[in-house]
């Protein structure tokens, strides 16, 4: 009996010691433990890999995938190529879900003291990345690089524009997109419209939309779900603003939601639904819209160039792409993810990370990435490669996105970007479902956003 008790005592004490040791230090501890385990594992692996790379630097690279297809596999391949070319550096790609998940994981890793050296995050996150000290400014690296300035100047200005925080470069464009209009040429022919003349103004959108709408088909399609509405809305506001102002100031500290131009833009959306009845009422989901377009249920949709591959492979009709039609002017929003380097790394790691970013954005590679995914190639020299030239010959619809970058502006980008997005989305939806007039909705959005941004004034 006594033996049994002793045994039991030992066992339960052991169990509680184990459990408690995992407990100390509070919230951060488990992540630290997990992150630590990952790192050791990685190190052990590389030690096995070869004795010649004993000194090899290990970099962790977090990347999100936000489009269908095999983007994750492509990233793995690119990293393998990099590691083969640079035996002294080993980049470990870690797939981190979508953009939101990636920020969550990043935050956890930072709290655990094991941030990835390089990561891809939305361009719109750069104010947050800078203000929280999660990413470092890259200006010194660019200055130290022999062709650094040349490299930066080669990026399309429309994309490079949203890499700056207070005049410093915090990110390098990588997987970038813009919104274009896809339209069904067969439907155009059917109702007597010229399939080579897509709409260029809002008035034409209404006019064409009315012709294209019938019992089984809507003329126009826009995704108004949370996380998508604010993107399209940026486009409409740019098209309707007096002097081409964006929704926010360049320093990301203030928003201008309730201007008369923007109120008109939101009213125009409601008119498409309620007055002209050429757009589905309520909220259509971002992911449903291409499906409806492919099924012939909507003739013109506003969507990302990232859907090019999907639509060109699955459309059973002839489709065209065009610039977003303009109100007072033509304009479009850009979007997508950039490269960042974590703050507080040792000098050799920073250099290795920079080398990796340069490698990933080499013209040939950026061009191939664009072909494989549908993202717009980020550098001017990409478009001089044979790869890109052949692609545009094969799929001329893809070229529109590139040409449109000249008139494109960054999407809504501020401090606390996620919260500000949510505020705008919620209020747009309140107008769409009829809880508020466009004016009330945007005034409310302005008020709420100003409150959130107050601490940065």
């Amino acid at each position: 009996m006594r033996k049994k008790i002793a045994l039991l005592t030992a066992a339960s004490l052991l169990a509680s010691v184990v459990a408690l040791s995992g407990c100390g230090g509070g919230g951060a501890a488990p992540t630290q433990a997990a992150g630590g385990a990952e790192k050791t594992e990685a190190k052990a692996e590389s030690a096995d890999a070869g004795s010649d790379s004993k000194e090899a630097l290990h970099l962790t690279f977090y990347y999100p995938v936000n489009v269908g297809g095999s983007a994750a596999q492509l990233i793995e391949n690119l990293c393998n190529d990099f590691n083969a070319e640079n035996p002294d550096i080993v980049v470990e790609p870690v797939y981190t879900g979508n953009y939101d998940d990636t920020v969550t994981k990043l935050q956890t890793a930072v709290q655990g003291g094991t941030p990835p050296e390089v990561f891809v995050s939305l361009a719109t996150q750069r104010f947050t990345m800078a203000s929280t000290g999660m990413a470092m400014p890259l200006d010194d690296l660019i200055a130290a690089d022999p062709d650094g300035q040349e490299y930066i100047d080669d990026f399309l200005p429309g994309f490079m524009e949203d890499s700056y925080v207070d005049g410093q470069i915090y990110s390098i464009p990588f997987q970038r997109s813009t919104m274009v209009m896809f339209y069904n040429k067969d439907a155009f022919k059917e109702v007597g419209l010229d399939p080579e003349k897509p709409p260029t103004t809002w008035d034409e959108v209404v006019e064409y939309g009315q012709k294209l709408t019938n019992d089984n088909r809507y003329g126009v399609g826009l995704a108004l779900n949370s996380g998508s509405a604010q993107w399209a809305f940026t486009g409409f506001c740019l098209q309707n603003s007096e002097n081409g102002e964006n929704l926010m100031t360049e320093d990301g500290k203030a928003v201008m939601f309730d201007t008369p131009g923007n109120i008109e833009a939101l009213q125009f959306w409601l008119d498409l639904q309620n007055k002209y009845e050429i757009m589905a009422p309520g909220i259509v989901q971002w992911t449903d819209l291409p499906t409806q377009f492919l099924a012939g249920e909507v003739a013109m949709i506003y969507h990302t160039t990232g859907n090019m591959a999907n639509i060109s492979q699955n459309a059973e009709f002839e489709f065209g792409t065009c610039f977003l039609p303009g109100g007072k002017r033509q304009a479009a929003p850009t979007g997508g993810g950039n490269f960042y380097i974590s703050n507080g790394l040792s000098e050799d790691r920073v250099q290795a990370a920079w080398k990796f970013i340069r490698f990933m954005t080499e013209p040939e590679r950026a061009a191939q990435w664009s072909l494989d995914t549908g993202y717009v190639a980020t550098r001017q020299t990409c478009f001089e490669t044979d790869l890109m030239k052949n692609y545009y010959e094969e799929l001329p619809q893809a070229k529109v996105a590139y040409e449109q970058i000249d008139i494109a502006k960054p999407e809504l980008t501020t401090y606390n970007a996620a919260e500000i997005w949510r505020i705008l989305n919620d209020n747009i939806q309140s107008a769409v479902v009829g809880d508020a007039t466009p004016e009330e909705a945007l005034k409310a959005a302005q008020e709420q956003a100003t409150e959130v941004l107050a601490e940065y004034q």
Partner: protein
Amino acid sequence: MKTYTRKQRELKKNLVGWLLVAPSLAFMTCFTVWPIFRSIYLSLTKYRMGMAKPEWIGFENYMNLFQSSLFWKVMGNTLFFALITIVPSMVVGLFLATIVNRKSRLTGFVRTAYFYPVIMPMIAIASIWMFIYMAKNGLWDQFLVSLGRKPMNVLSSKKTVLPAMAVMYVWKEAGYLMVFFLSGIQSISEEVNEAARIDGAGSWTIFRRITLPLLAPTFLFVSTIALTNSFKLVDHVVIMTEGAPNNASTLLLYYIYQQGFTNFNYGVSSALTTVMLLLLMVVALPRFLSQDKKIHYN
């Protein structure tokens, strides 16, 4: 053999008891008690992503929440959703239980079929129901169109989004509650039913006068489970609507998640968590304290 005094013996007995619960106690401390106190502490601070340390601000988070119309909207949604899911899922669960209680060759199959939605993850269920609720091309809208009506696009209207989710949830939850009701029904002695039948009672009378009253403990248990479960829902909101339209489908847990992991506003999200904790305690305590006495346990 050494003899122990009574006190020593008692001490030893207690020690064994403590040691036996030590492992679970350790885990409870780590993963339940500690996080609760940590949340309560964080709820009294300003703590956002990028801040090195939480900054003490007292009850400011709570004051802000109580003044925010969004907070009250979310609370309203949560209570409304609880209201429209608990009673139906209990009624359906009880109904299913009475069906599968009958002996027939198909009993095993039918029980499995009704229980099947329970073992499926909510994420999978929500994804599947998206095909039913999808605008225009979904099963429901297609059904309406085939009747010559207009498609509803239920998930995009503030009036229908929560009821639509509730239907799905009742479908999933009823099978779970059915199991408790079934075991409750089967624990009722057959003699009581037989005696009633001899006295000439019909099956409805038996159900109303015998089964239902004797199921009271089960009802207490099931209603508490159903209520707390309905507060703990988040997966389907993420998959189906992300709170749209205009937060008409934002439930408390989703709001907590959004504050914590989208806005990285840990202070506010901890305050919301504390509110939820209190709410669940308020909901659960009186039920256990008061109703316990009025119920016949057999």
